[in-house]
């Protein structure tokens, strides 16, 4: 089992979701996060005071999948989010030790889908 974490541009969420549905990945968690990569964000100014926190809004996806779904999931995220410009984002793939479905207490691969 893998846990796939992706950071993408907010306006690409719909396209990524579409691509994920195409490979039958329907279970995702989405959160709104702040961050910056090489773009270094934008300096904000409030009543003359410069605020160089310069973090930009991003979307973070968390998707837990069985091993055979990992590669299609990664491809789907890339297909949906890639524009070939700086700021497209990153995908992190982690080994997932355990997964429990709370309703039935099933564990492992059966619990994931």
């Amino acid at each position: 089992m893998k846990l796939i974490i992706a950071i993408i541009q907010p306006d690409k969420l719909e396209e990524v979701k579409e691509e994920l549905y195409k490979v039958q990945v329907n279970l995702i968690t989405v959160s709104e996060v702040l961050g910056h990569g090489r773009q270094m964000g934008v300096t904000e100014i409030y009543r003359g005071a410069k605020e160089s926190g310069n973090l930009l809004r991003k979307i973070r996806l968390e998707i837990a999948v069985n091993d055979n779904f990992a590669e299609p999931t990664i491809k789907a995220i890339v297909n949906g989010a890639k524009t070939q410009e700086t700021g497209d984002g990153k995908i992190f793939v982690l080994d997932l030790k355990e997964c429990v479905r709370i309703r039935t207490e099933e564990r492992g691969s059966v619990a994931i889908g």
Partner: protein
Amino acid sequence: MINSGDTAWVLMSAALVLLMTPALAFFYGGMVRRKNVLSVLMQCFIVMCVLSLHWVLIGYSLSFAPAKGFWGGFAWAGLRGVGLEPYADYAGTIPHQAFMIYQCMFAIITPALIIGAFAERMKFSAFLVFTLLWATFVYAPLCHWVWGVGGFLRNLGALDFAGGTVVHINAGIAALVTAIVLGKRTNLEKNIPTPHNMPFVVLGTGLLWFGWFGFNAGSALAANGLAVNAFVVTNTAAASAGLSWALIEWLHNGKPTIFGLCSGAVAGLVAITPAAGFVSVIPAIIIGLLVSVFCFIAVTVIKPKFGYDDSLDAFGVHCVGGIWGALAVGLFASKAVNAAGTNGLFFGNPRQFLVQLIAVGVTIIFTGVLTVVIYKVVDLFIGVRVDKKSELMGLDLTQHRERAYTVLE
């Protein structure tokens, strides 16, 4: 002879109409995505600053100084000769400057209405230049033709009580052409923008409804029976149109929405604007019920079919509602309501309908053509559209270096 009651009502109405621009800011601001809300508020508020100055310096003179021809000219520039005594051709019982400042608020909100068409993608500098040119070369002449002494549509007998033609059709058609020439927002098909703060839309609608009493009942320019008629039909039309839109949605989509009700109420207010001083209450209900049908079709059928990106439906609500209102004057106007007006088609005077049709046609052609010209000139010198990256990042950060909502703290 100055009448204190009339003067008090017109000054109060001017304040009510001023409030409509901040109201519009929240109405529109709630509809955009959160990365662009400040850009919309900023555009509305800078219009209040810039066009207030423009109006007292040249705008009022160009619009209202008595003259035949393209506009009023510069005779009253800097309010020269516009004093505290009444000017009988416009309003015989209030100081001339009271009339001037009341009209100022109309000149502010009209260009602000167009913002709805190019929201989320126009460069701020280009927006400022566009607005100034538009106020000078589109609003002022049209205002002069319809309301100014010597204006040809006024002489023709076109009736526009509070600005259906001058404000709503004018801004609405400008909205349509800017939306078309500016092009769609990036990635629109894949990433359908949803309103980021619906309570703002509702707040804006409530304040617009409130301010509109100044817009319509104030247009009587006196505290009299005509103002009361305008007040009553304004409220009635807004109520019927809000209800009507909600019912259409209920039948068509299965659920009524607050966004629909608000859109309907505003459409009703738009439609009753030219008619408020000429029709009675039953026609107001008909005008209100039907305007939602027309505007609903415009924004849910016509817009997707033709594919123009009128972001916040400035055309679909203001132009379509305004045209219906202007034509409704030609149908329902009655001398029993306003002896200074005329009868419409249903009261035995088909000519009035034709005159209204001419006024609508002139507005659409004149404003449509001139808006494209102004747009192209601005585009040539400074470029009207932000680059793609700025658009994706949002106008708040890229045009103003601010953001509306923080995520941390």
